[in-house]
């Protein structure tokens, strides 16, 4: 059988490309290493409706989504204290004939559904098959080598949706294996609780959900954060940090996860729950500076394989959906014009540049290097915030005027005014780009 395009992977990016191409009438072969799409995949995880609607307009009617995220919480933890900030908005809720802003999903079911959408439009899926290499002839990618007997399959275009461990791309020097401080390890548990208990504890109704991201002391000095998301009948709890930090700080990720689960502000949410699955996954955080070759003759890279993640804003699945869709759109044009040269396919890079994807990656390019260099900011400032809150909120007979003065004095003892101004300036400089 002849194919126009081979897509490596049936994750968020691969499925987005497959749906776009199959809808456009291309002959698509999608190769997935799991027995079913989704069974190798994992995220926190939240999807954003806008990026999925472009692929499956009424997805919320059939997709296995868990809960809309209508309330977002950010906590800063110090050794014994927590400072909490939350944002709840009815605008995030689903409306008649319109989805909510974002939903929690469990990727195993979700990816199976999404690959099914591609299949519905005519994409062919080859599961339980690992792609081992690309076939490259005269500098052009012309197919893949799989772990099946006589496993060569040819097509004039290959799209990589391999995910974070992009072995096939790395083998051909389309991108490099990331360094330990360019990739985060996230471990997570899915904990089962009755639906009404979840709604009571998180103070949400049936069509609402909440997300919590917790920074500071909770990660024991590792650069990263913990998270807690509500699903329908489960909650997802996890923690992530750079692989380098787990290694250098001699902290086991699964023990840090226990520390998170037993944190005094988190434990009450989980009480009586039963862990139904533990899992771990990597997130590529190299960012714009480390972007791989996105385009080559007969080859396009999408999603995690192409480092399309904005970790600061926990965004990855939307980057995967959009990059997969854009790769699919360019591939359809390439098929129509019978031109698979990198010259023609460069339209993909142009589309990425015009979209939020490369704009966001470029504007955040200095943020991770900044925090990697200045881990002290994530250690010292939570202490400072905690101290300030405690000084102001303790009622002990001290007049408020004196309290405020004491607070400022105490804060300035922890960090000099010059240092605070300098840190703020640098932070705003990298964030404001």
């Amino acid at each position, binding site marked *: 059988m002849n194919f126009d395009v081979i897509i490596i992977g049936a994750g968020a990016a691969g499925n987005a490309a497959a749906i776009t191409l199959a809808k456009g009438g291309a002959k698509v072969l999608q190769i997935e290493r799991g027995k079913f799409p989704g069974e190798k995949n994992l995220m926190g995880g939240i999807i954003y409706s806008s990026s999925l609607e472009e692929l499956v307009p009424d997805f919320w009617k059939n997709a296995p989504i868990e809960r809309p995220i209508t309330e977002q919480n950010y906590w800063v933890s110090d050794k014994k204290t927590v400072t909490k900030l939350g944002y709840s908005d009815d605008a995030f809720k689903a409306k008649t004939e319109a989805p909510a802003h974002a939903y929690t999903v469990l990727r195993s079911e979700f990816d199976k559904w999404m690959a099914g959408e591609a299949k519905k439009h005519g994409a062919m899926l080859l599961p339980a098959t690992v792609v081992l290499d690309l076939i490259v002839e005269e500098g052009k990618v012309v197919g893949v080598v799989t772990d099946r007997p006589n496993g060569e399959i040819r097509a004039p275009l290959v799209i990589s949706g391999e995910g974070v461990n992009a072995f096939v791309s790395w083998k051909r020097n389309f991108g490099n294996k990331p360094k330990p401080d360019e990739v985060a390890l996230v471990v997570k548990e899915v904990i089962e609780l009755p639906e009404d208990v979840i709604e009571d504890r998180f103070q949400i109704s049936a069509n609402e959900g909440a997300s919590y991201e917790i920074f500071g002391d909770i990660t024991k000095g590792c650069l990263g954060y913990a998270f807690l998301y509500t699903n329908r009948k489960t909650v997802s709890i996890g923690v992530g940090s750079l*692989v380098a930090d787990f*290694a250098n700080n001699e902290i086991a990720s699964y023990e840090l996860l226990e520390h998170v689960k037993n944190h005094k502000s988190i434990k009450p949410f989980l009480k009586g729950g039963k862990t139904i699955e533990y899992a771990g*996954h990597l997130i590529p955080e190299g960012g714009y500076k480390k972007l791989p070759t996105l385009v080559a003759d007969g080859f396009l890279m999408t999603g995690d394989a192409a480092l399309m993640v904005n970790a600061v804003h926990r965004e990855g699945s939307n980057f995967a959906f959009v990059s997969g869709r854009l790769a699919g759109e360019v591939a359809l044009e390439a098929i129509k014009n019978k031109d698979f040269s990198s010259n023609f396919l460069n339209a993909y890079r142009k589309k990425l540049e015009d979209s939020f994807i490369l704009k966001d990656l470029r504007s955040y390019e200095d943020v991770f290097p900044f925090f990697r260099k200045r881990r002290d900011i994530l250690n010292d400032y939570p202490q400072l915030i905690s101290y300030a809150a405690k000084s102001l909120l303790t009622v002990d007979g001290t007049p408020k005027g004196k309290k405020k003065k004491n607070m400022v004095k105490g804060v300035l003892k922890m960090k000099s005014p010059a240092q605070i101004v300098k840190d703020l300036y640098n932070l705003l400089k990298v964030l404001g780009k």
Partner: protein
Amino acid sequence: MKDSSDKKNSVTETVSIEDKLFTINYDHNHETHITCIGDPKEWEVLNPLQWTCPAKVYTKNQDSGNLDIDFENCIECGTCQILCPDHILWVYPKGGYGIRNRCG
């Protein structure tokens, strides 16, 4: 060689990693997908894998002093080949085998 139990930053563990791994659905073909490359004498550099691998695949054998690799624990994250690219050859298990996330 340091054991994972004498790490300097041990945090309280209430659910063991063994119990966590017990919740995972695997389909094994009993063929290893993890190989150490190079001279075993240089494997000291692999020590951090004992606590960095999230599935406790790597443990020091108390009798032989060698590193044991329980590849059947592997949750296929790829941390080991990121951390020790020159010493660990980690590939995907054969198509259809390995972890099978029910939630993901």
